[in-house]
C-alpha cells in the first residue's frame, strides 16, 4: 500500500517526507524501545512509536527505516523535523494510540516482521 493511502486511513498528518508518499509500505514494526528497533534486520519498514525524540530519528537513520508514525498524538518539534528531513525520512503524526494505529494498519494488509 502506498504511504499516502495508509496516512489517510489512520487520519495521519504528514510532517516530513512528502516525496516518499508514493512509496509502497510492506512491513511495519511497533515499539517505544529503540534498542528493539535496532535489532530489526529488515530495511525500509514503517515504524509505529509513541517515542518522539531525536533518538527515534537517529535510530531510524541507522536501521534504514524510511517511514515513522508518531502515534498517541505525539507532536514533532523543529529539531526532530530537521533531522528527519536531512535523512529523507517520512514522519507522520497520528492522533490514535499505538494499539489502534497498529491494528488498523495490520487490517490494511501491512505485514508484521515476525
Amino acid at each position: 500500500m502506498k504511504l499516502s493511502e495508509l496516512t489517510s486511513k489512520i487520519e495521519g498528518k504528514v510532517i516530513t517526507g512528502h516525496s516518499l508518499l508514493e512509496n509502497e509500505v510492506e512491513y511495519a514494526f511497533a515499539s517505544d524501545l529503540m534498542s528493539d528497533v535496532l535489532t530489526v534486520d529488515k530495511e525500509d519498514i514503517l515504524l509505529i512509536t509513541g517515542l518522539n525524540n531525536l533518538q527515534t530519528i537517529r535510530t531510524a537513520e541507522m536501521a534504514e527505516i524510511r517511514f515513522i508514525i508518531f502515534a498517541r498524538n505525539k507532536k514533532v518539534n523543529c529539531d526532530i523535523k530537521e533531522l528527519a528531513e536531512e535523512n529523507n525520512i517520512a514522519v507522520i503524526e497520528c492522533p490514535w494510540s499505538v494499539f489502534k494505529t497498529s491494528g488498523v494498519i495490520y487490517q490494511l494488509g501491512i505485514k508484521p516482521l515476525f
Partner: protein
Amino acid sequence: MHLKYKIQGGNFSKAGFASSEVKKILRQLSIEPKTIKRLVVALYEGEVNIVAHAYNGLITVDIDTEKVTVTLKDNGPGIPDIDKAMEQGYSTASAAVREMGFGAGMGLPNMKKNTDEMTIKSVVNEGTEVIFINYI
C-alpha cells in the same frame, strides 16, 4: 582513513552524530549497504552507551581496504561485571536513558551481534574500552 569523534556524556541531543558522520563516509566509499547497517548499528549502540553511562569518550574509526576497526573509549564508572553486562536484559541505565528509548540491557548484545570481532576492557571508576572490527 582515520576518523576521530569526541563524545560528551549525558548530551542526548548529540547522541548519534558521530555514527551518522561515519555512515555518510562509508556510503561515499560505496561499501555494501548491509555491511554499513551492521557497522553503524553497533557504533550507534556504543555511542549511546558512552552518552548514557560515561563522563566523556572518544570514538576512533580506522578504515582500510578489508576492514573497519572502531574503538570506543570512555572515562566513566566502568563495568564491574562484563559477563553480566553482556546478558540480554541486564542494565544499570538511569530513568533519563530509558526515556530516550534505551537502557533495556540490549545494547552490548546487539553490538556483539552486529560485529565480526568485539572485545571489552573495563576498569571500575576509570572507564571502558570497546574495540570492534567489521570486515568489508
